[in-house]
């Protein structure tokens, strides 16, 4: 776990790729991409192991359990597309419902899942919770902003890992879903977005902070 002091608040960046705000008992995850394997199959692509939804749910279950979070924000692209939300199988839907029960749960709209889902919780384009703004895609002028979308990843000691990016203005979260690729930190979109002194906080078995590779 990497503790980050950001706009007067202590945030915990977890090795799993979730962000925990202890003062608010709030857990943030981004880019879950539930139902990705089914969407690929539907489009005539490969038949990938159809287990990514339960792998992601299992991880989320553990994080909710350890953090005892009462609020959850999913930062968009929670479902690989709107049809994937409807196509979730029964066991997975039940599991998700169980996780949502008793929690204040917000689905932020992403570019993959523009429509609201029938699963419950509240649906927002973005959410402000002082001092932060939570949205899917970072805005160039964003301030105290926490977003997802880019799936940043970085390499350290020969291994590539999803990572958080953090500077004074914003945090970009790694993708939390099991079947998600990544965009190298040194991609122009990310180097343009982040300040020169930004940090990359790698996920994995431990959260490790390094200067953002560029």
């Amino acid at each position: 776990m990497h503790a980050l002091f950001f706009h007067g608040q202590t945030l915990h960046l977890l090795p799993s790729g979730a962000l925990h705000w202890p003062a608010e008992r709030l857990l943030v995850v981004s880019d879950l991409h539930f139902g990705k394997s089914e969407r690929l199959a539907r489009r005539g692509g490969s038949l990938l192991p159809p287990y990514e939804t339960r792998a992601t749910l299992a991880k989320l279950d553990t994080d909710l359990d350890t953090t005892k979070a009462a609020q959850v924000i999913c930062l968009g692209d929670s479902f690989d597309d709107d049809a994937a939300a409807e196509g979730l199988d029964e066991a997975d839907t039940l599991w998700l419902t169980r996780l949502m029960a008793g929690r204040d749960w917000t689905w932020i709209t992403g570019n993959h899942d523009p429509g609201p889902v029938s699963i419950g919780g509240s649906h927002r384009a973005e959410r402000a919770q002082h001092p932060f703004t939570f949205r899917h895609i970072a805005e160039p002028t964003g301030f105290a902003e926490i977003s997802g979308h880019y799936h940043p990843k970085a390499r350290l000691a020969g291994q590539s890992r999803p990572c958080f990016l953090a500077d004074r203005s914003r945090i970009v979260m790694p993708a939390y879903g099991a079947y998600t690729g990544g965009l190298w930190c040194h991609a122009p979109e990310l180097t343009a977005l982040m300040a020169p002194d930004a940090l990359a906080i790698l996920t994995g078995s431990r959260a490790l902070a390094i200067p953002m590779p560029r």
Partner: protein
Amino acid sequence: MTALPPSLATWFATKGWTLHPHQAQMLALAHTPATLLIAPTGGGKTLAGFLPTLAELGPTPPPGLHTLYISPLKALTADIRRNLRTPIEGAGLHIRVEDRTGDTTYTQRRRQRADPPHILLTTPESLALLLSYEDAPRIFQGLQRVIIDEIHALAESKRGDQLVLQIARLQSLNPGLRRVGLSATVENPPALAQFLAPETTILQADPGPDPDISMLETDAPPPWSGGGGRYAIPAVLNEIARHKTTLIFHNTRAQAELFFHDLWLQNTDSLPIGIHHGSLSREQRDRVEQAMSAGALRAVVCTGSLDLGIDWGDVDLVIQIGAPKNVKRLVQRIGRANHRYNAPSKALLVPANRFEVVECQAALDAVRAHTLDGEPRGPGPRDVLCQHILATACAGPFNADQLYHEIITAGPYALLTSAEFDACLDFVATGGYALKAYDRWQRLKLTNGEWHLRDPRTAAVIRQNLGTIIDIDTLKVRLKGRFGGTPLGEVEEGFAASLIPGDTFLIGGEVVRYEGLKELTVEVSRTPGRDPKVAVFNGTKFATSTLLADRILEIFQADSWPDLPTHTAQWLSLQREVSHLPDPRSLLLESFPHDGREHLVVYGFAGRNAQQTLGLLVTKQMESQGLAPLGFVATDYATLIWGIDPVIDPAPLFDVETLRDGLETWLSGNAVMKRTFRSTAIIAGLIERSHQGRRKSGRQATFSSDILYDTLRRFDPDHLLLQITREEALRGLIDFSRIEALLARVGPRITLVRRPRVTPLAAPLFFEPGRIPVHGQGRDRLAADAAQKLMEAAGLA
């Protein structure tokens, strides 16, 4: 006997050519269903394969494909086309010969489908593509003969398994199809014959004179360890000067680079010497090939990239640096010298270290005794079968029963059960998952008893992914600031990722400094005269073959060694005095203290990969027995383990059941498994190849196959692809079968010799690179240290 067309016979006569006996025999055997011709290099083997075709086609053949020629190398098809043109045009025959490879233009390929030539020269991959088109039956209609060149090279890999499946397909389309296999180096002719077809006639040509081979004598004895053979450079330069053209073979690209670099430093006469290996850019290799055929080079330092194929220039000497590890490869390389029938090839072996002197002697003995090595390959791999089923579906609907019966006519798949076939078909159709099937989104659907693609548009993507060669992701290396300039070569992505600016490495014989990564290019600058950080290219690390290892153990049993250089003979005598020499009937272990640590040497002679696996498994056992192992290092012959406590009772460490259990646990999270899974998943069609173009734009869309591997292991551990992955890993890099064979052979005869100090045979092991530390949390610790350093460097810690 089929007669040659008169004009061709006349043309041969005017050229003063007479047929070799085996060429005439090939004409006589023109109507046998399958023939395997084994003839030495330079014996007109390829022409022998084509003579019946030329005879049958005659001066004015009707249109349509008559003969399909398949070669493992693209370059070979172009070469053969030029060679065939000479007699065809010389005799005024109206026979169309064309090649078709990945380099053939789109227009040309389209025209070939519409109007096939009489003789089509191609590779297994291009054939797979042709067969996947709906009009395959029309393209191949009337096909009479298929010729497979260098069939032994194909039979060793999945390319060969794929090829025989395709030939089974062609045979169903043309029941009268006749097969011909051509090869110069075959260790087991009946097995290769079986691979070609169920009933094959073997035709063995006169093998020609024995090669003239020996060990290169040098002033300085070889060093105790290492693999470069650089001590021999003065003697090698001397030989280059005495011969017209010399090929200098190395076992790895990195060694070739280092040797080439040092060769030039000592090349005071400025003899023109080039370098050729698979990591160099196409342009650079072409330049060397051209210079060589023009006779402008006196020597070429090379790797397996010149093992097969085209005859360039007038090579009169082959030098093999480092023990050849495998007799068949050595014979193939020797054959590169003197491509003239009835003249002996000349070759010199240069052992890289003291141990390899014995291995080189064993290899010389084996070549002189005409024994070749080769491990039986086992049944045809099922990932290739999955791809074949998918490709078949691209060509059109098929009946599962018929396809199964066609497949079991292919040698490697003769023993495939219908249950195994069904599992592969189920994988292709539904993904084959235990918990949930893609009912609505199956890849193949069954309609009226025939399987077909659910969505015909997917055929295009499937075709792009055909083939069994898996490229390791590589990055081009360019001089900084020279965009569009010629790249120097390519390095593995993993190697590039391990570089930090300022690091130096060798490529194309020059030392370059790593400057940075720009998009998908490694940018470097020239730094003459610096010592390079060793380049870790993806050159294969060969393991010594069982045949050679057995011969080395035999040499050890002699009373004295008059054939070996004195320094080596004395070394072995000393070992016999101080301890024992390993023998084939038992497993010799030595234990001694050294430098404050306890050491254990396991002389398994099982080849590098198996000795490495043995090191991992035995240290694991030692760990659980509280013997505190600290690390180990493996060579082709032995594993050296060091730790805090001595091993007193070795037998429990080598119990095969315990080792196998250890293997299961260790394998699951192992990088070898993940790498193997990736290849298997690509071949079987679960994931697509990463194309350069798509990699650029793919970004978040693509994710690593490691994730799929982990997910499958967690939720579906018995899945077909995991079964295949385990099979592959066990016979490839992990090579557990050789450990099993070793332990079965020695039974309870495990001898532990305790000595007060390092023994002569063990001494070289202390200089071996590639020492592997034993620790559980190692990787995390490395990463944490690296992160700490970076933060400190940035002033953030």
